[in-house]
């Protein structure tokens, strides 16, 4: 028998890793004290953290919450270093809502429940889009509950009755939700039990409901606008069946635009004269604070993704005209600072409008910020498209899927997944860029902070205001960042 010969008699069993590399001790050894250099760095970093916190924390925990002016703060602090939180205590409603009617002026009512309700409903509308693990019924509990509380707190007999009915509905659904477990419910549904309507219906209605809640006016305006989409969809379905999808799209867009331009006004006026239903109008110049930032941010974020996708596809198109239009748009918008676009929105645009027409300043800003974000989004999505192997397009083609189906079912789900980090970065960037509107005179939190510091009581307060604004922005941006990480984890399909 030669020395080279070897045969394994039995396979080796799996063993646990050595203790020194696992558990808390193993973790610390590997990550903090891995060698002399790293140990020194760890100790130095801990010392730095201590220095920063020992300077910052006494400043943060300062007993000035109820101070009425900067001088008050100085008296309370009696020479010690400390923050003057009285300014936040006094002005936080303004930082959140700007000059939205709060009932302090003669003959006005506190309307701030409207932005609050809009904000809550925003979450209800967005949850089924962002998370699919929340059950249908949970969504309806949230929606009915939010509306119920809004109605009940409005006072008045009729609204009270509606509110109580909504809350009862919410309670009933919640009771059902907690009384059946998931497995039973899945069986019930499989055997054909009735399900609640899809909560995405509300997500589709919300974009029409929100402006009405914020700006007020007749409810028939937003309903008319919604009708435009319904008409477009019906026309699309009818024409596509006869003349193909391209003609369908053209006819749908035309009919919807005709409705919006010529017929909608008459419809809204007629309905308003039959059933007058509306909220007290609030002018755009009263908007301000985080309410304004969130409004601009949410609209820009919500609209820029679909527009960006269309632009990215257009840029890859074989059709010369479509392609050059998209490239031209993207390169122009990306080549111009947002500030310039905002100045165009605030001053130049009015020159080109017919005299006497009143094109709302916030709407103008919304359009500009959305276009700006779309151009960046298009490039992010294009990056995702470029990262997809050519084989995916070929496999989709070989199965007989047409262009739009291949895009929708195969290409976009993968391209968007690849681009999640870039997309969310753009979202965060856009949200922070909303502070630029203070330069054209809109009172976003930064604009307001200047106004607040102009007050004799708070002249000289800087860190507290900017710290508060920074914290608010951080909460939103950090949540977006965390959500994107959650989404990336959820969409991973390459592990066991």
């Amino acid at each position: 028998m030669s020395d080279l010969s070897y045969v394994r008699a039995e396979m080796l069993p799996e063993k646990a890793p050595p203790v020194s590399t696992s558990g808390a001790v193993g973790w610390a050894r590997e990550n903090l004290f891995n060698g002399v250099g790293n140990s020194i760095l760890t100790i130095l970093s801990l010392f730095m953290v201590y220095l920063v916190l020992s300077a910052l924390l006494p400043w943060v925990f300062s007993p000035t919450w109820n101070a009425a002016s900067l001088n008050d703060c100085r008296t309370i602090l009696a020479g010690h270093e400390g923050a003057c939180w009285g300014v936040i205590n006094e002005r936080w409603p303004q930082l959140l809502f700007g000059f939205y009617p709060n009932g302090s002026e003669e003959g006005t009512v506190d309307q701030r429940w409207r932005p609050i309700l809009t904000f809550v409903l925003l979450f209800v509308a967005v949850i089924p889009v962002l998370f699919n693990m929340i059950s249908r019924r949970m969504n309806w509990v949230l929606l009915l509950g939010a509306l119920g509380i809004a109605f009940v707190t409005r006072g008045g007999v009729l609204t009270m009755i509606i509110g109580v009915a909504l809350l009862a509905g919410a309670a009933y659904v919640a009771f059902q939700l907690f009384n059946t477990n998931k497995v039973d419910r899945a069986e019930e549904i499989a055997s054909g039990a009735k399900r609640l309507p899809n909560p995405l219906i509300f997500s589709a209605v919300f974009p029409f409901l929100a402006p009405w809640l914020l700006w007020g006016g007749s409810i028939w305006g937003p309903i008319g606008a919604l009708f435009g989409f319904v008409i477009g969809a019906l026309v699309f379905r009818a024409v596509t069946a006869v003349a193909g999808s391209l003609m369908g799209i053209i006819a749908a867009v035309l009919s919807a635009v005709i409705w919006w331009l010529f017929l909608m006004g008459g419809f809204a006026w007629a309905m308003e004269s039959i059933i007058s239903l509306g909220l007290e109008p609030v002018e755009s110049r009263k908007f301000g604070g985080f309410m304004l930032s969130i409004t601009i941010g949410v609209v820009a974020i919500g609209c820029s993704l679909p527009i960006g996708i269309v632009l990215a596809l257009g840029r890859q198109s074989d059709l010369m005209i479509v392609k050059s239009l998209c490239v031209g748009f993207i390169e122009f918008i990306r080549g111009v600072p947002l500030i310039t676009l905002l100045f165009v929105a605030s001053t130049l645009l009015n020159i080109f409008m017919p005299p006497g027409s009143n094109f709302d300043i916030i709407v103008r800003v919304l359009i500009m910020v959305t276009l700006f974000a779309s151009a960046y989004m298009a490039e992010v999505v294009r990056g995702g498209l470029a990262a997809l192997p050519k084989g995916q397009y070929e496999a989709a083609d070989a199965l007989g899927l047409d262009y739009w189906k291949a895009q929708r079912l195969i290409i976009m789900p993968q391209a968007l997944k690849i681009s999640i980090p870039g997309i969310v970065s753009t979202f965060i960037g856009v949200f922070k860029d909303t502070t630029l509107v203070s330069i054209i005179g809109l009172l976003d939190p930064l604009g307001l902070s200047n106004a607040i510091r102009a007050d004799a009581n708070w002249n000289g307060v800087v860190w507290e205001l900017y710290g508060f604004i920074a914290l608010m922005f951080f909460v939103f941006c950090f949540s977006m960042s965390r959500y994107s990480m959650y989404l990336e984890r959820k969409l991973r399909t390459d592990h066991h």
Partner: protein
Amino acid sequence: MSTSIEFDHHADRSHMSVSDKVAIEITGMNKWYGNFHVLRDINLTVNEGERIVICGPSGSGKSTLIRCINRLEEHQEGSIIVDGTELSSDLKNVDKVRSEVGMVFQHFNLFPHLTILENCTLAPIWVRKTPRKEAEEMAMHFLEKVKIPEQAHKYPGMLSGGQQQRVAIARSLCMMPRIMLFDEPTSALDPEMIKEVLETMISLAEEGMTMLCVTHEMGFAKEVANRVIFMDAGQIVEQNEPNEFFDNPQSERTQLFLSQIL
């Protein structure tokens, strides 16, 4: 590049007959990439039930040829008629041909964001408008046929190469194609996995599927094909039935090629 894979030589394959109905007819077809003349005057008629293996050195245009049959590549001259439909720039004809012709790629090209089952049901549901339940039953039927029904709810990334390629075959079969194109289906696989894929392809051939297969697996060609086509420099150099082709090649180029690989 000889294959060491052994097939059951005693299996009776006499029932694998060829009908005289024409499935694919290619006449005077030419194709260029820019100025490069990649396919030159291709004339090829494929009858229903034929099992054709196309071989040749790399760059000889064999992949391009079968990719022209479902218009993943456009030809510039001549005509390709698949199942009575001529391939032209008319997208409706192209989609019709594509839904009748299945294709298996060298790199599988499964959709990584969908489960195995969803990969298989996607085209039947969206192209054929098959109800989801029916499509799922059919998908399970074909997954059983390629012997991986237990993987139906996994994602492609969790499967081995051989399993992925068998899923790709099942995915094509779910569209009930009349013709199957294989573009080097085993070239990206380990030797251990090549056999499982070839066996799947053999069982498909035994059921009478019309197959065009670009491959270097000469064992497969000898065993299953009723015609072997040798291509070089964008043209068909020689074609014959497998025994004659391998034992008695006529052209010098074919002889050289066979002496290199066998």
